[in-house]
């Protein structure tokens, strides 16, 4: 197969994949008697056409950055962490416990680091058990993390209903966090408030997420630990030869992965909801897999892919709001994007390879 030049590999392949996903989505829309052009306009307009739309797109993107990074780190260690969803749920629990049951925080700037610590610890703890089973017993991490997603879901329902729910409240959710701990949204930040004139859900967590992307890049490509993680992920045998402990790398990579997935909770639980509700992660843990895949397991790619999926989420919601197109179509479009950018990656590559083939010989 023809090797593509690097620029085509990182830019052209995802672009063509997206266009193909868009094309099939258009066919689906036509099949249900809707206008693809109108749907596209609504999506772009609603998600990217205004600062308000961007405020939602970036809110979703923030969550996806965290979960994307979580998948990325595990992936570089050769581990496929499907458990981002459960780890993010537990992260939410960590946030809620810190904000409800520790000290009363006088200011969000003090509450945020504490909540981050809680989110990261709980997320990491939820990843620790599958990691330990993988490292010591060889139990496959894909299977165990999926199981732990289900356990997390059940656990959260139990905790919310039986323990965290304030007496007399009907819905299974925790009490509201103190108003002082509410994170500033983009429209409340001096300077940005000139752009975001209406209230948007995107909040300071976005900057934490971007910082996390940079830190993960430093970790993976500038530190010994990252070097060892990547080496172990590429070749377990070579890592053993070099004296890199498989147990240590498996545990550290999964703990970091779980912590990042858990950190997502500062965006949705602390930032948006202001309390812990059931199923708070809303599938963002799974979207993280697609984000990491499409972002080529590079933090910069994760940022871009997270924004793309943020757009799909927000644009999809807009579709449900303004058109008669069912909101489920959002899932279809996302599925197609994942299908083309992830699963059919090689197919796109092969198709493009034709154009990069060296000149043919006149036979």
């Amino acid at each position, binding site marked *: 197969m023809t090797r593509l030049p690097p620029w085509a590999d990182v830019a052209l392949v995802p672009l063509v994949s997206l266009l193909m996903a868009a094309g099939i989505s258009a066919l689906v829309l036509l099949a249900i008697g809707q206008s693809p052009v109108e749907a596209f306009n609504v999506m772009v307009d609603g998600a990217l056409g205004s600062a308000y739309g961007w405020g939602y797109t970036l809110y979703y993107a923030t969550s996806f950055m965290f979960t994307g990074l979580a998948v990325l780190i595990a992936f570089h260690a050769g581990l496929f962490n499907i458990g981002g969803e459960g780890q993010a749920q537990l992260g939410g629990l960590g946030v809620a416990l810190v904000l409800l049951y520790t000290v009363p925080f006088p200011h969000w700037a003090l509450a945020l680091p504490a909540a981050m610590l809680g989110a990261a610890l709980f997320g990491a703890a939820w990843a620790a058990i599958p990691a330990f089973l993988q490292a010591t017993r060889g139990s496959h991490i894909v299977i165990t993390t999926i199981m732990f997603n289900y356990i997390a879901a059940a656990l959260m329902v139990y905790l919310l209903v039986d323990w965290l729910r304030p007496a007399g409240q009907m819905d299974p959710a925790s009490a509201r966090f103190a108003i002082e701990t509410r994170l500033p949204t983009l429209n409340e930040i001096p300077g940005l408030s000139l752009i975001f004139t209406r209230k948007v859900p995107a909040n300071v967590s976005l900057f934490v997420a971007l910082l996390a992307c940079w830190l993960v890049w430093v970790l993976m490509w*500038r530190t010994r630990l990252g070097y060892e993680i990547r080496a172990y992920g590429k070749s377990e045998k070579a890592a053993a*030869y070099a004296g890199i402990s498989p147990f240590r790398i498996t545990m550290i990579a999964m703990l970091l992965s779980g912590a990042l997935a858990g950190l997502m909770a500062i965006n949705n639980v602390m930032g948006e909801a202001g309390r812990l509700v059931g199923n708070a992660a809303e599938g963002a843990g799974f979207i993280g897999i697609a984000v990491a895949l499409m972002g080529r397991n590079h933090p910069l790619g994760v940022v871009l892919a997270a924004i793309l999926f943020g757009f799909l989420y927000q644009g999809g919601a807009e579709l449900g709001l303004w058109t008669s197109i069912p909101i489920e179509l959002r899932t279809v479009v996302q599925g197609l994007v994942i299908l083309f950018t992830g699963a059919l990656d090689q197919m796109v590559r092969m198709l493009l390879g034709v154009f990069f083939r060296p000149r043919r*010989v006149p036979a």
Partner: protein
Amino acid sequence: MTPGTESGGRPATAAPYAIELRGISKAFGPVQANRDISIRVPKGTIHGIIGENGAGKSTLMSILYGFYRADSGEIYIDGKLTPIPDSQSAIRAGIGMVFQHFKLVQNFTVLENVILGVEDGPMLNASLAKARRVLETLERDYELEVDPDALIENLSVGHQQRVEILKALYREADILILDEPTGVLTPAEADHLFRILKGLRDQGKTIILITHKLREIMEATDNVSVMRRGQMVATVKTAETSPEALAELMVGRKVLLEVAKTPARPGPVVLDVADLRVRDEAGVERLKGVSFQIRAGEILGIAGVAGNGQSELLAALGGIQAATGRVTLTGRDLPLIGPGANGRTRREAGIAHVPEDRQVLGLIMDFAAWENVAFGYHHRDRYQHNRLLMDLGALREDTEHKMQRFDVRPPIPALAAKSFSGGNQQKIVVAREIESAPDLLLIGQPTRGVDIGAIEFIHKQIVALRDAGRAILLVSVELDEIMSLSDRIAVMFDGRIMGLTDAAATDERALGLLMAGVSTAAAA
């Protein structure tokens, strides 16, 4: 064989050549892999193509097999102009290829592998029965015995290779290309392969043998073409040339096939191994109580047929494999089992290790050269920028230095390890391990799959390290290599050392007996 629509000026009297290439050129970006190559292979001959790694042999064969398209040039098969745009066309033209790395389905039987892709219909029984009949004749005719119902994963490497040859013959190949076929074989298996090839030739098949081993060329071929840096520098009759002349043609300068070294001046004992035992995962004892010593300034060679415990010996000493017994390095006990026994503590103790399989153990193939150059030594202070960050500048500089000193080509630190030829990969590993200034160097199969110019260089480095007063444990299945490098030789058979002698006091025959497990007078 109908005369083709050829246009060239070949004497009309000669039978058509089985293969004729005219003016084949192929470039990959700026690299001219093949430059105006013309070659004629007469029908019913074994034609060797020899050249260093990276000389363009594999590219040329890939063009002939339809993997690459030449930028220019023509291919004639049996005198007929035959464009080969893909491998289907190559198979139709009667060309079969046996790759260095076999393309077999491990959990299929021999028969199933043979018919894979050429089944006659959706139901397999008829195809299998037909293949069984064809295979029986082929096996009878060519000494290609393989059990048609055996699973591939249960076959030895030599037998797997026979299956590859059978696959090609089943597809009615008249021309057989073998790419470095003996790289994975024991000497006895290699001899058998050459008998098979000669049998095929005598039945009228044409065989192209790609190798960098001079000995095989001399032993098995009728004609030989030498490639160097993308060009065909000579084609000669094998009977009219010599290994020295071929080596010079390959490298472009005189090459010392013998290792020049002075007698050893052994110092104090560096490594003392007593009753070393290793069990594999299945509980089978692979190393059954091995004891020996190596002194400073001495090379101990471990000879033996592959799979007699040499790999386990290296792995146990290198800290990769748990073992029992007692090992001391310059008087200090080394942990053989538990968390203290790993590659890192071994390096800290002063043991460097060039593993037998550089692609699986010694290098991360996807990592750049500069990332590989500190692999295993990445904890050393010189590679740290501060407590958190690695010093990428230092790594690059170190890589450039090592590439220059060990003549790694191309000298590009950012290039991934997998993009280097086998010889240059090995140079990166050897450079890393030797330059770590070890007390003891473990080195397994130092020149497997390495071209002749690099072999000479690596051998020189090993001897230089010895002369600098270090101890060296050399494991190799190449008896020539053991004999020319070692000061003392131990022969391993079935997990034991059968005999340990001075290199000067033994010969190939005595070692061969020990390697076969015959304990004779040679034991000292």
